């Protein structure tokens, strides 16, 4: 099974860092914005791998093994993102910078899509970010999943129109428009705090303190 010993991959690492530097430098000749974005992408991939962050784990482990550490970390991520997005939204409204948030239309296909996505990510052993992350780590299983993801995405994109025509669609609901910003934020953070407590209680119940 494991006949190999430990080899330092430092030389490869230095080579790869040079490659990344070269890539980013070339890209900066075309667009500074894309260079920044790629650097952010690289950072995201790096942090995801180093912290082994995985949404599938966060949602599946409470069910299958009763552990909720990742679930709670994900709730923390949600909280930070909600508040950060609100700040950026306010900041850009003040300066009249156009900004798009992910307020998507709602329909039967939202729920169906979510169910299919949930089933799929357990079977594939990773969510979208997890599949990209593990593809980068060298898992052939996730390369196959990535292929499926791309094919499925094309099929999905091309069939939205059918879902819309069959079941209709409501425009996205931006909660601050209905409730106002502060009630929305308080509500959302409260729900997250409640979920966090629930997750903590769930693990304590399985394992003791």
């Amino acid at each position, binding site marked *: 099974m494991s006949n190999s010993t*430990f080899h330092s991959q430092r030389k490869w690492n230095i080579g790869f860092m040079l490659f990344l530097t070269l890539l980013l430098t070339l890209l900066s000749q075309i667009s500074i914005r894309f260079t920044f974005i790629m650097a952010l992408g690289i950072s995201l991939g790096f942090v995801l791998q180093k912290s082994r962050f995985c949404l599938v*784990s966060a949602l599946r482990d409470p069910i299958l093994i009763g552990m909720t550490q990742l679930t709670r970390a994900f709730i923390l991520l949600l909280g930070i993102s909600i508040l950060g997005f609100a700040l950026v939204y306010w900041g850009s409204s003040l300066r009249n910078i156009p900004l798009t948030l992910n307020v998507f239309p709602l329909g039967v296909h939202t729920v169906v899509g979510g169910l299919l996505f949930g089933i799929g990510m357990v079977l594939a052993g990773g969510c979208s970010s997890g599949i990209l992350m593990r593809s980068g780590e060298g898992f052939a299983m996730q390369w196959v999943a990535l292929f499926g993801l791309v094919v499925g995405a094309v099929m999905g994109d091309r069939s939205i129109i059918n879902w819309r025509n069959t079941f209709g669609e409501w425009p996205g609901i931006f909660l601050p428009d209905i409730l106002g910003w502060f009630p929305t934020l308080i509500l959302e953070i409260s729900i997250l705090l409640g979920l966090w407590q629930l997750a903590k209680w769930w693990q304590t119940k399985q394992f003791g303190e």
Partner: protein
Amino acid sequence: MTRFAIDIWGEMCPIPLIKAKKKLTSMQCGDILVLETEHSCTSRSIVLWAKANRYQIEEEEVANGIWHLELTKTHD
């Protein structure tokens, strides 16, 4: 103090942990379960689960990206 091993090589998480859980129920106090995996996620989740159960766990990276685990069932 018997040593057991189960083959979890190449299994995607959480399957190794589920298999380990099952094996532990048939083991006695003091027995050791030996596991090897090339999956960083799997290794970490087994370590976390063992610690949550207050079992003794040793994890060692024995080759590039291969982890060797020894889980001691310290209580029932």
